[in-house]
């Protein structure tokens, strides 16, 4: 289907543009690593305490790495008015949103993987026993976060003080992602039976669906002049 090809093309374009220099991806990873590094001064991560604090730490690192990514992804379209260039095409504006959302998702997942790897190394914590459910949880939470972050990134790009505007918009709206993400991650890392934190996963799925659809429908208004 043509729409699928268009989304694919936009996704591929974002990847290709980023791949030339990989600046944004590298900054996201470095930022995440720095946060994990600083956290290690806050507490001595050993055993039970680690289990209590790691999920929160992880999601905070993910959150800020994501903000960086959304800002730069949106800014890249402002240069040479490329976003308008896409708006000139006879395509549904929501497809532009989907393409960029998938690219943001891709890069944030990579940065998150780097952060998780660093945490497992520096905190001597193995994610492997719970890797399946942990990965699913992180994916679902990231999906919801990116669903909102992509459209807010585009909105903020039209403001002055855009680096401030984006977190101010994103963090309150993403509260359910933080809560559900942290709760489900805690459950997954403890090895609790999935049924115990399944409702949190369902919340993440619901959040993602709602805001993917809503952002898809509303994106044309962000392009409008």
């Amino acid at each position, binding site marked *: 289907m043509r729409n699928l090809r268009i989304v694919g093309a936009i996704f591929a*374009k974002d990847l290709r*543009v980023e791949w030339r220099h990989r600046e944004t991806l590298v900054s996201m990873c470095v930022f995440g690593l720095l946060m994990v590094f600083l956290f290690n001064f806050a507490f001595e991560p050993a055993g039970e305490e680690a289990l209590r604090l790691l999920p929160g730490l992880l999601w905070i690192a993910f959150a800020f790495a994501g903000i960086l990514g959304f800002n730069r992804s949106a800014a890249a379209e402002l240069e040479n*008015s490329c976003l308008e260039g896409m708006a000139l095409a006879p395509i549904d504006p929501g497809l532009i949103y989907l393409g960029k959302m998938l690219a943001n998702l891709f890069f944030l997942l990579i940065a998150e993987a780097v952060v998780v790897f660093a945490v497992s190394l520096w905190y001597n914590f193995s994610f492997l026993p719970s890797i399946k459910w942990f990965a699913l949880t992180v994916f679902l939470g990231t999906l919801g976060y990116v669903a909102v972050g992509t459209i807010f990134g585009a909105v903020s790009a039209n403001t002055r003080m855009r680096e401030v505007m984006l977190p101010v918009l994103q963090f309150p709206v993403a509260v359910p992602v933080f809560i559900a993400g942290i709760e489900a991650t805690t459950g997954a890392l403890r090895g609790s039976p999935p049924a115990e934190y399944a409702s949190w996963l369902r919340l993440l799925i619901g959040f993602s669906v709602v805001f993917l659809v809503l952002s898809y429908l509303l994106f044309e208004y962000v392009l409008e002049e």
Partner: protein
Amino acid sequence: MPSDESRVELALELLNVSKFFGDLAALKEVHLRFEPGDSVLIYGPNGAGKTTLLRILATLARPSEGRVFFNGRDLRRDPAPAKSRIGFVSHATFLYGELSARENLRFAGTLFGVSGVEKRIREALELFALLDRADEPVRKLSRGLQQRASLARAFLHDPDFLLLDEPFTGLDAASAENLRAILKGLPERGKAVVFSTHDFEQGASIARRLVALDRGRVKYDGPLSHAPLGALRIARGAGRTKDA
């Protein structure tokens, strides 16, 4: 009536369009109609509203008042048919600096649903003499070359309406002459060319029709050869021409 039917086809029309930016009126009660085969110079002093006019025609901006019609249909409802028939060149290049001209065109080709895209890309690159620099990142190209790549992008989907906002800026003499020849030949092929430029002589050598804008208002819309002195005074006042 049959003749009216064919007139309605493929016309790009502004009806009583005004555009406000805050309290500033960039366009005031503009009525304009463009059809394939038209060759139009939009001229006026800085701030006259030329860019705003072209952006509204290109569907990038919405009028504050009034309507824009393509093919008899209001653009606000369904802009897609118009977009596939319009090519727009502006101050911004719409090109991704990290990608090559070829990659940029390929991307545009997918978005615009161009069939036989590789062939079309080669043709567009050839048209603007870009074949030998087509695979370098666009940001490495000079302003003039970037402008040519931007033109190639606008031509890629073979649009019926070419809207160009000061397309000659940054072009060297040879490229400008090349573009001039291209634009001059388009109306014969059934395309419409609507462009603005600072060089009145250059514009007059291409266009047959003049739309003179002053402070957002259309002061003259008609054949260039019959343009009254008043309109020409506006036009000449805006650029550097040999006459006083």
